[in-house]
């Protein structure tokens, strides 16, 4: 609901904005171009002769009229009109004087007291075009005299329906210039810079398109800019390089193509697809090119103004309504901004169509191109944003890709290591089997056979030998166990040790308390580490059997939290031994254990009291 309310509010604001623009355009309370502060000349005589100089005028043909004078109703079917005004001057200053024509269509030449003082351009076809540009002719004050002066203005229109002369001014240049310069700046200089900017922008956007040809929106905007900038030339170029007919046809079609390109741009910008509609628009714009083949200026203008422009207006309305629809479906700042700049273009366009069809004072001139300034700025910003975003996305993608490649590499590395580990284990296992086989067939079998032989023999020597052989066999088993990958699990290793040593312990009539727990996997577990651990534990157990006089012992393991360590305890509940015995070099077993603990980076703790002895092996994991 909240979102709906916001949408309605936003569109309501847009509607008010559209109404304000309409009022400003059609009922403007302000005069944009204030006239010079001298009295205007509007009571004139006119003469429709086709004379090309004052001298050749047919002086019998003068009629009175007042300015502004739009020919299409006062004197149809003629393309040239001479105007004559008589101005009475009280005082003529020495400074340069001038005649200022704020609005004339299309070309004018000015004569002061029968002396030519200037003209817009050539009068022969194609007639020089100044419908957008104010004209100011200056001359020496010497041409003027105190009292009555005669001003003749020759005006020629490229097509009679367009002919116009607005009221004009005779005064010292200094008084005319501000009004002229201001109007010239707004009508010509500003538009010139905008047009140049549009051409430059079109190159920039075109280069975007070259960089990202898959993004058609850049090509569309390039075309839109070129069409529109070309259309603007009608306001800037006085001396056209082609015939009036071709020129007008070009202006019509560029306007059509601009609007079509804009609609296609809008569709793409909001990711909307309507191929059929776009096809219709393109066919329309292409068919519109037929205007170039019309026989004369009159038919170009009639078809252009009455039919072509109406369609363009409809398209313009569609473009705005389309954006409204998109906005209603999914409110979005970009679309709102597009509407914000789109509405004035539509209103200005309507104004211009009314002007050329004489529904609005012709002197107001064309204004649609002013609406485009904002649009061009906005769309350029959009596209730059889009391009930058595309680059950013590409960079992000590259980063992601790089990361992925890294991850993959890492995974591969891991896999490789795993394979290597497996291979190593495989190798170990093969090696273990080979050693096992060797021992089984060779030394192991022989040792077992010896034990078998000595089994039944009595006598201390035999018992001792058998014991020694038994120990050798156990040692052999440890060596083989150390190679077993399954026994890299420490608790299983201890479990196997129990199996190997149980006969010895039983023989000593010692009760073994077993308290092995589950243990974390030790890093860097290797056959040599396994063997060292086994030897240390074995030594501790053997010491208990040999020296403790205890009938009870315990093997326990556990995990320490901080730092992360595990321990293996061998505890006997025997006599204990004195501390000084430990430093005695004779206690070879203990030194041996210490050495082995050092080799595997483990701590060996030995604590002995009358209650017994604890040997603790501590290792990090």
């Amino acid at each position, binding site marked *: 609901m909240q979102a709906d309310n916001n949408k309605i509010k936003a569109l309501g604001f847009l509607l008010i904005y559209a109404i304000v623009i309409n009022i400003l355009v059609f009922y403007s309370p302000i005069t944009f171009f204030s006239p010079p502060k001298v009295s205007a000349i509007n009571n004139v005589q006119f003469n429709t002769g086709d004379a090309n100089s004052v001298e050749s005028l047919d002086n019998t043909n003068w009629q009175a009229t007042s300015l502004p004078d739009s020919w299409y109703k006062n004197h149809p079917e003629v393309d040239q009109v001479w105007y004559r005004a008589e101005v009475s001057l009280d005082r003529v200053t020495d400074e340069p004087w001038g005649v200022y024509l704020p609005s004339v269509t299309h070309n004018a030449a000015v004569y002061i007291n029968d002396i030519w003082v200037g003209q817009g351009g050539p009068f022969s076809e194609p007639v020089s075009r100044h419908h957008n540009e104010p004209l100011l002719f200056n001359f020496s004050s010497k041409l003027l005299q105190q009292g009555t002066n005669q001003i003749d203005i020759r005006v020629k229109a490229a097509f009679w329906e367009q002919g116009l002369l607005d009221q004009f001014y005779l005064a010292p240049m200094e008084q005319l210039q501000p009004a002229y310069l201001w109007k010239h700046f707004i009508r010509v200089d500003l538009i010139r810079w905008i047009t140049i900017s549009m051409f430059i922008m079109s190159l920039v956007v075109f280069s975007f398109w070259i960089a990202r040809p898959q993004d058609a929106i850049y090509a569309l905007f390039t075309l839109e800019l070129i069409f529109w900038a070309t259309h603007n030339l009608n306001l800037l170029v006085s001396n056209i390089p082609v015939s009036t007919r071709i020129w007008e046809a070009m202006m019509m079609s560029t306007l059509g193509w601009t609007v079509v390109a804009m609609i296609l741009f809008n569709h793409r910008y909001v990711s909307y697809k309507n191929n059929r509609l776009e096809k219709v628009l393109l066919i329309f714009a292409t068919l519109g090119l037929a205007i170039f083949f019309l026989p004369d200026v009159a038919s170009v203008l009639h078809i252009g103004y009455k039919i072509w422009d109406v369609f363009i207006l409809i398209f313009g309305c569609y473009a705005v309504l389309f954006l409204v629809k998109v906005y209603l479906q999914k409110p979005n700042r970009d679309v709102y901004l597009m509407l914000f700049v789109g509405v004035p273009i539509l209103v200005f366009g309507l104004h211009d169509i009314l002007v050329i069809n004489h529904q609005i004072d012709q002197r107001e001139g064309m204004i649609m191109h002013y609406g485009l300034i904002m649009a061009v700025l906005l769309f350029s910003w959009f596209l730059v944003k889009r391009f930058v975003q595309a680059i950013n996305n590409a960079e992000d993608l590259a980063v992601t890709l790089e990361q992925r490649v890294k991850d993959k590499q890492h995974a591969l590395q891991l896999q490789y290591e795993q394979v290597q580990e497996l291979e190593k284990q495989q190798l170990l*296992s093969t090696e273990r*089997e080979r050693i*096992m086989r060797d*021992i*089984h067939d060779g030394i*192991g*079998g022989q040792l*077992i056979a010896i*034990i*078998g032989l000595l*089994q039944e023999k009595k006598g201390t020597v035999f018992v001792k030998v058998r014991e020694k052989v038994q120990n050798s066999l156990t040692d052999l*088993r440890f060596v*083989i*166990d150390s190679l*077993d990958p*399954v*026994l890299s*699990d420490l*608790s*299983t290793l*201890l*479990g*196997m*040790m*129990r*199996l190997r040593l149980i006969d010895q312990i039983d023989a000593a009539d010692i009760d073994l308390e*077993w308290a*092995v*727990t*589950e243990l974390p996997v030790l890093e860097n577990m290797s056959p040599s580490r396994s063997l060292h651990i086994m030897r240390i534990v074995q030594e501790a157990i053997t010491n208990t059997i040999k020296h403790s006089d205890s009938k009870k012992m315990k093997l326990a393991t556990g995990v320490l939290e901080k730092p992360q360590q595990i321990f293996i305890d061998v505890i006997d509940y025997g006599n204990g031994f004195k501390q000084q015995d430990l430093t005695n070099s004779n206690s070879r077993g203990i030194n041996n254990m210490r050495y082995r603990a050092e080799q595997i980076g483990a701590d060996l703790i030995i604590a002995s009291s009358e209650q017994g002895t604890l040997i603790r092996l501590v290792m990090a994991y």
Partner: protein
Amino acid sequence: MTKEEMNNYSLIIVEDDADIRQRLSYMIESHDAFNLLAVESTLAGGLAALKRYKPDILLADIGLPDGSGIDLIKAISRWHLDCEAMVISGFQDEYTVFDALEAGAKAYILKHDKSSRITDAILMMMEGGAPISPVIARLMLQRFQHAQTPDQVVPEALTERQIKILKLVSQGFSSKEISEKLDIKYYTVTTHIKNIYTKLQVNSRTEALHEAMKLGLL
């Protein structure tokens, strides 16, 4: 007690090493509980004896000159014989024992063990016992863990109790200690171990079927 009144188990031995064969034969013949039917030294001989005598117990070595003792063990289930297979294991032979267990063996003996321990082990098996070592328990855990990957067909998974028992075995605890630790009967522990052996065998057979189907052999 006469021979007939004792538990009397018929037995055949398949072992290629003459010394061991001799030692085992002597051991079995001199024990009242057993009735030695045949002693063979090859796979072929073993298979023939198995078929002919249908013994209660098969004592089989794995490395035979004309093949693997595993095939002998497999033949028992193939021919639906009521026979318990026992592997004669050499010095440090856990992996071979494991393979035999997978094939359906119920226990193993160490060929160089004391005579008393060997006959005890056979009797223990017949009374429902199941010898196991820490390494075998660890291999067993690995086997079942490995089999629980998604693309494997595992009709028989281990129960939590069975996993717990295997873990304790792998840590070196005896069946008696385990029964005390878990507060269950000694007999229950050995039954669990036997059941684990059966599951192992079932899984390995299912896997073999699965593999065969994958290869298009079935």
